[in-house]
């Protein structure tokens, strides 16, 4: 048991600090070439950094006031798929502009009729000589309205079982036939999500990642390689305000004089600390090279409802004032993550919070994962899993017709 981080005098820390001093205002490309954008990736993009070095780099960049290029889908999610499964040409063309932040990426996975059951997706990629023709629609795509590049999972073989007939593609989001429509969500803040439509979009065979039929395996592998991070205390998917900030805000506002408020605040504070510890445990498992323990799925399943409770308490405490647009409960609060209030403040968090038990995996799906994979309880029966995908669609359209009539 040891909860301490590498010391001030650690030589790895001193090396990063020296680089930051030599590059006080680095460009995105300078940061990328130094390996500091994705230190956990292999060279030349990363440093093959062990988790402790990753934390040191996070720490030192924060201390120097340097932020990484903002390209979360490439950096945290999809980029690694090109490293693991991409060709040399794909890596050379796409990775450096992604890591330097010059080309924003988006992830084209969910569909209107495929949410939790992602593998049932319908978007089709049909091979015509040297290119595929893509038709279909993707939804809940963050950043699609700003993205140059999309990473898509589409169906290349409808006669195969649903998990087997999928392939991964790199899409030019400015290609003819791509249309991006913003989704206005209930927060009233500028749109975060989009629906994307693909009509006869041509994608060169060279932009398929991995072999045909590898799409499911590639997107799953991506989930295993998430970057370790400590500096994400926020209650809304790691961003936004935290339970600690709720308690300090209530304290400064004098609200903790009420014994019921004290009890509820303490409960949320303890939950927040538990989530912090479960993250530490996950991190330490990675650091020691151990297989990930149950805390990873547990952490995910606990953190979303916790975020909702933190937001609900702030809203209730505000009273009618909480219903005012863009109203913040605690004036001038210094934020633990250093973000400004407008970017991810309480008001945003309060009205965004219903989404956190939906995205990334609903609470119900996460509980199934815990019960089935960690407690070895029987798996849910999926009648589609052993049939060719196109047969499952006949059943499905018959069902949809019945409901419509």
């Amino acid at each position, binding site marked *: 048991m*040891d909860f301490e981080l590498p010391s001030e005098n650690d030589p790895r820390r001193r090396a990063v600090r020296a680089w930051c001093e030599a590059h006080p205002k680095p460009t995105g490309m300078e940061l990328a070439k130094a390996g500091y954008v994705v230190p956990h990736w292999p060279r030349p993009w990363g440093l093959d950094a062990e988790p402790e070095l990753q934390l040191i780099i996070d720490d030192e960049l924060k201390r120097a006031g340097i932020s990484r290029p903002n390209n979360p889908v490439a950096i945290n999610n999809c980029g690694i798929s090109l490293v693991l499964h991409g060709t040399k040409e794909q890596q050379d063309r796409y990775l450096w502009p992604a890591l330097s932040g010059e080309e924003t990426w988006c992830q084209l996975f969910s569909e209107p009729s495929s949410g939790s059951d992602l593998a049932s997706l319908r978007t089709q990629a049909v091979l015509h000589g040297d290119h595929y023709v893509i038709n279909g629609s993707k939804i809940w795509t963050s950043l699609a309205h700003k993205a140059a590049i999309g990473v898509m999972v589409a169906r290349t073989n409808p006669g195969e079982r649903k998990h087997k007939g999928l392939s991964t593609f790199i899409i030019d989001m400015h290609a003819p036939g791509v249309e991006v429509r913003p989704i206005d969500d209930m927060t009233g803040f500028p749109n975060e999500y989009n629906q994307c439509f693909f009509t006869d979009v041509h994608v060169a065979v060279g932009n398929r990642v991995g072999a045909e039929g590898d799409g499911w395996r590639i997107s799953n592998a991506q989930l295993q390689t998430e970057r370790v991070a400590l500096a994400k205390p926020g209650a809304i998917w790691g961003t936004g305000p935290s339970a600690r900030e709720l308690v300090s805000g209530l304290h400064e506002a004098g609200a903790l004089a009420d014994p019921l408020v004290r009890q509820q605040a303490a409960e949320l*504070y*303890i939950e927040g600390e538990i989530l912090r*510890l479960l993250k*530490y445990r996950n*991190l330490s498992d990675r650091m020691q090279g151990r297989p990930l323990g149950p805390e990873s799925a547990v952490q995910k399943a606990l953190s979303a409802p916790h975020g909702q409770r933190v937001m609900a308490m702030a809203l209730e405490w505000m009273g009618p004032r909480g219903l005012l647009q863009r109203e913040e409960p605690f004036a001038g609060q210094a934020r633990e993550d250093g973000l400004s209030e407008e970017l991810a403040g309480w008001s945003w968090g309060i009205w965004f919070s219903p989404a956190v038990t939906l995205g990334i995996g609903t609470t119900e799906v996460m509980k199934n994962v815990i019960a089935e994979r960690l*407690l070895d309880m029987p798996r849910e029966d999926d009648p589609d899993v052993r049939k060719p995908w196109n047969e499952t669609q006949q059943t499905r359209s018959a069902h949809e017709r019945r409901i419509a009539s």
Partner: protein
Amino acid sequence: MNFAFNEDQDRLRDSAVRFLRDRVDLARLTAQGNRPDTTYDKTLWSEIVALGWTGLIVPEEYGGLGLSLVDWVVITEEFGRVLAPCPYLGNYAGTLALLRAGSTDQKETLLPQIVSGDAQAALAWSESEQSEDAHAVTATVRNGRLNGIKRYVIDADTATHLIVSARNTKGSLGLYVVARGDGVSIEPAPWMDITRRVCTVTFDNARAETMPMAFDDAWPWITDRVLLALASENAGGAESILRQTVAYANQRIQFGKPIASYQAIKHKCADMMMKVESAKALTYYCAWALAQGVAEGPLAASMAKSFTSDAYRFCTSEAIQIHGAIGFTWEMTVHLYFKRARANAVMFGNPAAHRERVIQLVTAA
């Protein structure tokens, strides 16, 4: 950073798991028609003493093993997992008080005897029905003689020495060592958790020996470690009842399928597991924080006690529901866990009292 037990600790856990699995038999307590008041297993206890587990955290100079609180938690969690019916907890509460507040002479005399099993300690502090306020003490010591009544004293009836809080003639609070003998009468309480013995102790001019450390210096240190022990028991017990419940749900067939295949049951079990993993994380962090003496130690102790108590009560409630009516019978061990959870939750401060302390500590800075 390393959030894991080392190889020695893993070995220690393995030996505890094997020993307790072979020796603890709860079925003895749940035989139909058997409603025992006295449940402690003397053979079990003598074997525990022989293993040196009465001296896990006693320094080697006093004959103990000199292990850390993290090592101690490994064993304590296993005791909690099987509800080992023996005076492990009460003896450690008394031992901790001696370690903290005892004079060198008191430690040199008593600790080696406790380790060897020749003596056994208990901690007598609560006088109220609620067992909350350590300062609400009316027991008094005058001319080395103690008078008063202490309630809910864990493992007093097997103890040879009681560590007792009392006021002197000036009214100031302190801790005293009282050897069992004239003027000490011990009455076991009709306690619902039959895996543990809890007693009322009456002192009538009993000879009491002063312990040198001021009460307010000694008490938080002692109780934070007792809270850690209770949290470890809670985490181990909650995990055990989760495993037992999943096993039952996997074998119970209704409507042609194991009930474990129904999402309503799976989600209950997933909720239990989320509580269990949280309880373990807080408990281990608390052990580390107290062992290292970092500033968050007391905060960690109150967080661990309040959360693990609620978690244990939640898991044992759900366990009865998932077992169905059979879980409500005396012959199943589920009720033993249910009752232990409720007993631990209210000993040394209930969850609400510890949440209050959490807020005090967090906002004090």
